[in-house]
């Protein structure tokens, strides 16, 4: 039976934990709002880019001499897996889920006899992947210095990936991240970056369909594609990172909300024990006094 003092100390410590988790939840909530806005603001660009690519890509894809960024290198022996995770923990199953999906993909590739290279963005993924695939990790990008994720943060990473591709260091690149749906739901997403998957030319009814109109290209279709494809990689990466940032805050908010609630439950049950013990002590003292008086 813990003493009254022990109980008091425990209640106080749980209370201060609760204060911290509550504060973290508030911080996550406000960061979430900002991250969500950023992710939503980036959507129009990606959507339009997708439309243009859909129109251009399907026309050029089957021609000989199409950019390897679009048509691939003709093999898929060396696979680059980009795993985007968070920089900080305490966000529930967020990192574990992404890494789990990535790990499954990697083990499938390894089983199929492919060479796998891993690029980690965010240090939390490294810790989780190091144990099983430590020798496959070729690089880690530290994003901890980044306060507000901008396109300028994603671009150098994309440049590096493109540089590696040009030097023939891999054939296929896949990005793993969590797509933001709501604070409660994040969807693990696997997205192929290189070669760029050509989205089906959407049949939009607005009459702005690329396939429908005969476009004049300046300087030429190929030149535009050559300019567009590397940029598309950067954009997709940027979009993934933005979604990931929003998901991270969402996951953290939910996790901290749960932690706060659990701390509350714990305080309640500890308080009950505390009150009971106190009552028992009073009763015991009373009995001692009464039985002492009766003995006289």
């Amino acid at each position, binding site marked *: 039976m813990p003493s009254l003092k022990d109980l008091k100390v425990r209640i106080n410590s749980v209370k201060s934990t609760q204060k911290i988790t509550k504060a973290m939840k508030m911080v996550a909530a406000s960061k979430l709002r900002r991250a969500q806005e*950023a992710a939503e*603001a*980036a959507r*129009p*660009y990606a959507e*339009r*880019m997708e439309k*243009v690519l859909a129109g*251009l890509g399907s026309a050029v894809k089957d021609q000989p001499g199409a950019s390897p960024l679009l048509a691939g290198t003709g093999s898929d022996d060396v696979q680059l897996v980009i795993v985007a995770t968070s920089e900080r923990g305490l966000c529930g199953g967020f990192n574990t889920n992404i890494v789990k999906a990535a790990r499954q993909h990697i083990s499938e590739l390894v089983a199929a006899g492919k060479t796998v290279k891993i690029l980690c963005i965010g240090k939390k993924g490294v810790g989780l992947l190091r144990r099983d695939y430590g020798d496959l990790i070729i690089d880690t990008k530290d994003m901890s210095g980044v306060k507000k994720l*901008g*396109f300028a943060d994603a671009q150098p990473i994309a*440049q590096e990936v493109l*540089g590696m591709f*040009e030097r023939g260091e891999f054939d296929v690149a896949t990005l793993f991240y969590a797509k933001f749906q709501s604070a409660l739901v994040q969807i693990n997403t696997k997205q192929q970056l290189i070669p760029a998957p050509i989205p089906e030319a959407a049949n939009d009814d*607005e*009459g*702005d369909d*690329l396939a429908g*109109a*005969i*476009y*004049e*290209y*300046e*300087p030429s279709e190929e*030149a*535009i594609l050559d*300019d*567009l494809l590397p*940029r598309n990689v*950067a*954009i997709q990466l*940027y979009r993934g990172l933005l979604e990931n940032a929003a998901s991270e805050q969402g996951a953290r908010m939910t996790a901290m909300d749960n932690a706060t609630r659990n701390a509350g439950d714990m305080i309640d049950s500890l308080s009950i024990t505390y009150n009971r013990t106190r009552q028992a002590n009073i009763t015991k003292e009373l009995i001692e006094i009464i039985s002492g008086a009766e003995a006289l």
Partner: protein
Amino acid sequence: MAETMRFEIVSPERLLRDTEVAMVVVPGTDGDFTALPAHAPMMSTLRPGVVEIFAEEGAEGEELFVKGGLAQIGAKGLTILAEEVIALDSVSADDLAQKISDTREDIEDAKDDVERASAEKELAWMTALQDVIAA
């Protein structure tokens, strides 16, 4: 003749402008061109330069500097997918001159072709921006 067309300019970070305009001057890679309503469908890459937007005919143009990108003229209007958009009044000539000389050094110090190419690309838009400011 108050014909207008839809004009959108998007940067990777956000949708910057979505308005009805009468005319836009676009810095295409093969030369500037002016987009008017009911222009034939076309698509062009952009060089670093100024996009000049005229909300209505005869009105004063609004100038935005783009670092490159893609312009698409379709049935609905003009869409510019810009790499980066810089408001002209947000840069000072001195800062820019400093950056340009830094970039020049980078080109000299570049270890390989990839590094040099990216620094040269940086320099290209910086000098273009400098020309615009000086003008």
